[in-house]
């Protein structure tokens, strides 16, 4: 993949158009993108705007521009800066939903397995594994410096001597580091059905084929129990 000077991947104009059309066809799009007066209320209330060059006002304006190149410009890094807190949707005086538009664009990115989606989801592959295979979300052994740089400078210390630290917690725990809570096999089977039906496994297959294989092995094991 080649990138331009703004870090946006270079693709054909037809492809940009195709992606924009896909977004506009989403059943939510019309509800999320109305008129925009460029007032900046959404951006004024947007938490990441304080830290990055990211603005829900620009998200709405890019969509309203009808210029597929501007929308494509957000597909790589940009859409991943949003926290999905939906403050913007709550406060926009014209009832737009910039965060919702971002959700639509992210889903396209994930469905199509774009590089940016793969990169962003990489640290979460372990979360996806835990969640889809074991019905847990975060367990102590997942705290590793490489994967959670956003946890700050103490992540190195936090990830050492986990079994010992776990024992020091002054309340009942499972006393293991690979699970946070127990999930019954029946509940896990039900979760698998939901993930199947909702297309979650399919998405994982697109963004991370090797993770998908690991998960499917576990799923098969549990299902055959």
């Amino acid at each position, binding site marked *: 993949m080649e990138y331009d000077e703004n870090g946006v991947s270079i693709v054909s104009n037809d492809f940009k158009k195709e992606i924009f059309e896909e977004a506009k066809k989403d059943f939510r799009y019309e509800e999320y993108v109305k008129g925009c*007066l*460029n*007032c*900046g*209320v*959404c*951006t*004024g*209330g947007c938490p990441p*705007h*304080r830290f990055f060059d990211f*603005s829900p*006002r620009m998200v709405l304006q890019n969509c309203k521009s009808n210029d597929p190149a501007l929308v494509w410009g957000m597909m790589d890094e940009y859409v991943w800066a949003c926290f999905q807190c939906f403050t913007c949707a709550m*406060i926009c*005086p*014209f*009832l737009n939903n910039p965060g919702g538009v971002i959700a639509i664009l992210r889903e396209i990115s994930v469905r199509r397995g774009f590089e940016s989606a793969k990169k962003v989801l990489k640290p979460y592959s372990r979360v996806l594994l835990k969640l889809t295979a074991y019905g847990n979300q975060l367990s102590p052994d997942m705290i590793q410096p490489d994967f959670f740089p956003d946890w700050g400078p103490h992540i190195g210390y936090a990830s050492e001597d986990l079994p010992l630290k776990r024992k020091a917690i002054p309340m009942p725990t499972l006393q293991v580091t690979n699970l946070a809570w127990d999930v019954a096999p029946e509940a896990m089977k039900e979760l698998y059905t939901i993930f199947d039906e909702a297309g979650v496994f399919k998405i994982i297959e697109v963004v991370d084929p090797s993770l998908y294989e690991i998960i499917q092995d576990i799923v098969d094991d549990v299902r055959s129990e």
Partner: protein
Amino acid sequence: MAENILVIGGGPAGLHAAIELAELGVNVSLVERDTFFGGNPKKFKYKYLFPDLQPADNVIGELVKRAESNNNIKKYLSANIESFKEDGKKFNAVIKSSAGSETKTFDSVIVATGFEHFDPAKDSKYSYQLFDDVIDIKDLERMMGEGNFTRPSNGKPPKNVAIILCVGSRDRHVGNQYCSRVCCTVSVKQAIELREHFPETEVYIFYMDIRTYGFYEDLYWEAMEEHDVQIVKGRVAEITSGPDNTVICKGEDTLLRGPFEIPFDMVVLASGMEGGPQSPEMAEKLGIELDEHGFLKQANVTLSPFKSNKDGIFLAGACTGPKAIADAIVEGGAAAMKAYIYAKKNS
């Protein structure tokens, strides 16, 4: 025999209509719900009017004086229309006032019941009524009119003031999509007044669009060039409390600064105009239509803006939508002419 015409509402529009009709020799009944004539400008003690900053008394005081001294106008204060019925081409109305109830027959009617200020407490992001130092334009008009402009929290002059435009207007959350038309000009005028009287006070205006339409634009330039008013493009997203008894305006400066959080000593909300409860009340009582913005509906917005959808009932002033005093007065005259013609034809 002289015609009888009913004018409901004693603001600029109703006063002017009543005076014009009275000068034509019509018997006018002028019904005002308040204890005084003069409408909103009087009620909120507007001191200087845009566009030329002439004393409000030149206009409002003058209209009231002319109406009060004209014997063809029967004045009803603290009054309302208790009941209203059509009778062929005429109208029977019961006027209730402190003097009791009076039943009269009219040849035609002018409705000039005006507007209400949007109540900024309805939009929680502005923290109106939560913080003492957050006021709105009508409060500021009144403070300036009474000559006591200081911070409500401590009685001291503010170091800096933020004026926030479009409060309660152009906002689907509060149900008002329309522009209130005068608040930009009022705010720019207030900014100039503040800078003139308190040169030490910094004044900021936060806007989406500055709509000082037509010649009102002169005030906008004056504010920038002669009074160094800071004009920032961005709507404020939230008002919170800040250190040292300040209020913080948070938003995005969409052109220059990006995100901002600026502490102010005082915030003035440019709250807009609404049709108020009187518009639906009139619509129901008189059998005329309300429009989708909550004001009274004009028969044809371009051809006959001063007519209601009912023959013999005419409209004037801010009851049909936000407008300036000059427009209200012009419409009062136009409605008077129409009401006179209708009365002449049918009496």
